[in-house]
């Protein structure tokens, strides 16, 4: 990978808040024009990393650069070329949609009309509500307005911190479609989310847990690196199923996953007869009416696996 292809470069970044370690030796790189996802639960350190990358806070150690500009020295230049949408709604609720947009345009010294084509697709849905105060918009519309405001100056890199948290599923899907379209405009997008399923929509992802990168790859690559065979089990008494299977020595891990339990076992241990032998064992303990099958791992299963390995 050539240096000029890299948009965001993070090397060995650590950050402590008093005694709490927020980030520990984080390294990752984002290519130009890529959609990069930071995946992890709340408190994993995603927002802290975003704040370092957007020059809002300084790392304790390590370096980070945006388009070759250092977050420490060149923060003023960085602030001209990035767009940032923080985790919470951070527009002016008492200003109208139109006023918010033109205010943020003027913050970056541009007019709304300058880059309107870039946001047209996003903004056209809320344009009819131009005179409505931003606080009275629905959650999905607020997100659209915030995205429009973050894009109005045509940034090279767009940072979106948990843009879909608290947004209904339909608006979430729509939001990702909008990001997909932005990519065609050549904007590098760094987005964080705690919804594991959204990882699949990114070009590359970094799984983050407790301030450390568990894995950084394409979603496909992450799933391919999964070392176990994964089984799903569902049946009548889910609770005692979980308890009983957990007591079996050969099981690597079992955890509930929606309506089912997922069982991870070592690839080498698994053979065609394994499911039958497991079923017999369970029937012997008194379990009836359950189903077991082999399934493909999801990003969330990988996350569970990798974080167990890290510990």
């Amino acid at each position, binding site marked *: 990978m050539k240096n000029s292809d890299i948009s965001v470069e993070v090397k060995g970044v650590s950050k402590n808040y008093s005694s709490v370690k927020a980030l520990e030796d984080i390294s990752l790189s984002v290519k130009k024009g890529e959609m990069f996802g930071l995946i992890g639960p709340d408190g994993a350190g995603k927002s802290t990393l975003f704040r370092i990358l957007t020059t809002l806070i300084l790392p304790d150690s390590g370096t980070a650069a945006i388009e070759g500009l250092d977050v420490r020295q060149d923060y003023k230049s960085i602030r001209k070329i990035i767009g*940032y949408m*923080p*985790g919470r709604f951070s527009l002016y609720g008492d200003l109208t949609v139109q006023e918010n947009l033109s205010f943020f345009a*003027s913050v970056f010294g541009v007019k709304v009309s300058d880059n309107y084509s870039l946001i047209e697709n996003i903004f056209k849905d809320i344009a009819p509500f131009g005179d409505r105060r931003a606080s009275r918009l629905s959650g999905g519309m607020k997100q659209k307005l915030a995205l429009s405001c973050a894009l109005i100056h045509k940034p090279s890199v767009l940072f979106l911190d948990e843009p879909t948290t608290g947004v209904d599923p339909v608006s979430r899907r729509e939001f990702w479609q909008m990001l997909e379209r932005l990519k065609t405009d050549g904007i590098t997008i760094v987005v964080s989310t705690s919804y594991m399923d959204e990882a699949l929509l990114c070009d590359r992802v970094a799984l983050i847990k407790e301030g450390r990168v568990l894995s950084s790859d394409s979603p496909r690559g992450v799933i391919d690196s999964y070392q176990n065979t994964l089984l799903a089990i569902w049946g009548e008494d889910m609770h005692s199923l979980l308890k009983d299977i957990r007591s079996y020595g050969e099981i690597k891990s079992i955890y509930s996953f929606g309506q089912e339990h997922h069982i991870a076992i070592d690839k080498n241990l698994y053979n065609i007869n394994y499911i039958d032998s497991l079923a017999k064992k369970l029937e012997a303990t008194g379990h009836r009416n359950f189903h077991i099958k082999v399934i493909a791992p999801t990003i969330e299963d990988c996350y569970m696996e990798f974080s167990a390995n890290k510990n």
Partner: protein
Amino acid sequence: MRQFYIFVRKEFLHIFRDGRSILILLLMPVVQIILFGFALTNEVKNVKVAIMDPSRDAATTMITERLTAGEYFSPYMMVSTEKDSDALLKRGEVSLILSYSERFRERLMHTGSARLGLTADGTDPNMASSIILYASSIIRSAELEISGKIFNSGGVAIPNVRLLYNPQMKSSYNFVPGVMGLILMLICAMMTSISIVREKETGTMEVLLVSPVRPIFLILSKAVPYFVLSMVNLTTILFLSVFLLGVPVTGSLFWLVIVSLVFIFVSLSMGLLISSIASTQVAAMLISGLVLMMPVMLLSGMIYPISNMPDILQVIAQFIPAKWYIEAVRKLMIQGLPLNSVLTELSVLLVMAAIYLTASLRSFKDRLQ
């Protein structure tokens, strides 16, 4: 420049869209002036007097008439025993008891001195002392007249007390400068700091920091609307005090405005300083309340004279900008003194402005921490 205009316009929108705050901002000076002017005064007016007059002769009748003739005192009841009058005072029905000795005129004629007692309710010492002061000055002049009639001479030396600048002892002369100091400080410091901290709290500050906007720009645009509002308030206060309370601007209006501008500047910088310390609106409000309001109310000389305070408080008072401002306004507005008499106050305020402004600009961080 266009950018700055848009920023300032946005701040005005914030203020005007919040109906409650604009109401408070514009009505506060009016309410304070009216409260201090009509309700919370130390002025002696229509004070109810109980009169115990066992002698009922020409002299006592005359003194009583003189005392109750003006708008200051009104007779409430004639009582015959000390017990009755004390009870009236206790119940708060009267604020002053005037008691004559027996055979008042006779004694005055023969011995040259007769006893006359004034009793006031000491629970409010300020009020009591002004009542006594008023009453004794009226009685003294009446006595003088009586003794003049009797002895045909004004032989007794009686001090002729005169209060300069505020001959009627109107308390509005004292509080108008105080209210000016209080309101300008409140609006500039408190409101500015709250409006900046609000952006921190709602997260918009994060977005603004991650932009090419220069922080000084941001801060100045926050200060402008409150500067304008405090000018409006200054005008309101001056109008109300001249036309409603009858407190004249005896000195130079021009320099009064200039001194006020300097004080507004100091207050704005204090507000900016607070905004960089506080991270929530509540904290900003508390800091403004504790650090600004309390000292302005108590230590600026607005309510209690500084010279009566313990030494340590007197020292602290020197560091309170409002103290200097209020002093300057008293001199310029009430006493009508020329500019050179307030040079000390003006230069102290200028130095304070410089210090606070430097401190607040330095403490404004262009990162989050």
